[in-house]
């Protein structure tokens, strides 16, 4: 699971008012190379919750992203390369996503998070 996917998901357990961002528990992280697409990165940038993204990247071991940015950063090739790498190439392969309010764990196995809710959580 890419960090982009992590940035799009939130915990949807009944009664939880702010399920974003899910905390990441790392078992194993893998890297997969992806072709660079600057236009995609520029389109995606305004839709990313930056703080959650930087924190997620740090959690999986990548600390190269700036804590704060605005869209002028998109002019910089160096920035785009880092953004690309963190957004698309780093994968949580084993571990868990954890609801920030309730602490409920959603296990991630073979890259696939199990977000199924129990009956009393719907």
């Amino acid at each position: 699971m890419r960090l982009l996917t992590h940035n799009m998901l939130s915990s949807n357990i009944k009664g939880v008012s702010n399920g974003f961002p899910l905390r990441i528990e790392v078992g194993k992280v893998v890297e997969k190379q992806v072709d660079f697409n600057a236009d995609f990165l520029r389109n995606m940038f305004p839709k990313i919750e930056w703080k959650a993204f930087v924190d997620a990247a740090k959690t999986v071991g990548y600390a190269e992203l700036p804590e704060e940015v605005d869209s002028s950063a998109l002019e910089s090739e160096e920035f785009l390369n880092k953004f690309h790498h963190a957004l698309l190439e780093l994968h949580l392969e084993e571990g868990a996503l954890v609801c920030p309010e309730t602490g409920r764990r959603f296990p991630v196995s073979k890259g696939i998070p199990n977000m199924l809710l129990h009956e009393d959580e719907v």
Partner: protein
Amino acid sequence: MKLKQLEGLLGDLQQFSDPKVELEQYPTGPHIASRMLFTAENSFGDISSKVVADFGCGCGTLGAAAALLGAEHVIGIDIDSQSLEIASLNAEDLELDINLIQCDVKNLGWRGQTVDTVVMNPPFGTRKKGADMEFLSVALKIASQAVYSLHKTSTRDHIKRAALRDFNSSSAEVLCELRFDVPQLYKFHKKKEVDIAVDLWRFVPKVNQGKGD
């Protein structure tokens, strides 16, 4: 990629080994799947460089087709872990990077409209009434650009009304009518249900209007 080439690649994918009746597990055949995604890309520009979600992805046919046509980020969601395992192998075989999530489509939590396009072949709701409408309702909340979906032709008026009136859709258009081979996987299938008329729809979510992205 040429249509024939896409169809060929999809034809080689592994499909449900042990289909579950209650989840309406049958694959979209390569003929229909390739045309569905090819139209989305070539007539509307809704696939390449986009974030695409495949709702009820099963063994991943539609998501794989999106990735083959240049989608930048593909998310496949299914409730069934066995199907997702097959989808994962299929993606690996084609060297595609597809993010799979196990969840009930109607219960997954999303942070806003980060998906551009949803593609899906939802359960028709023959086993669980209203399943197709649940999928459509969620898809139109999540997508910012378009939703492509297959529904039984017999439900055309109902779908159109619900999409426009209840589900936040600014347009709902049948792109073509298809014959869908639902293979006789299940004993209860009567002969007449083996080949059914299905519409390929394109819905545009309303919120997108005027937002300018």
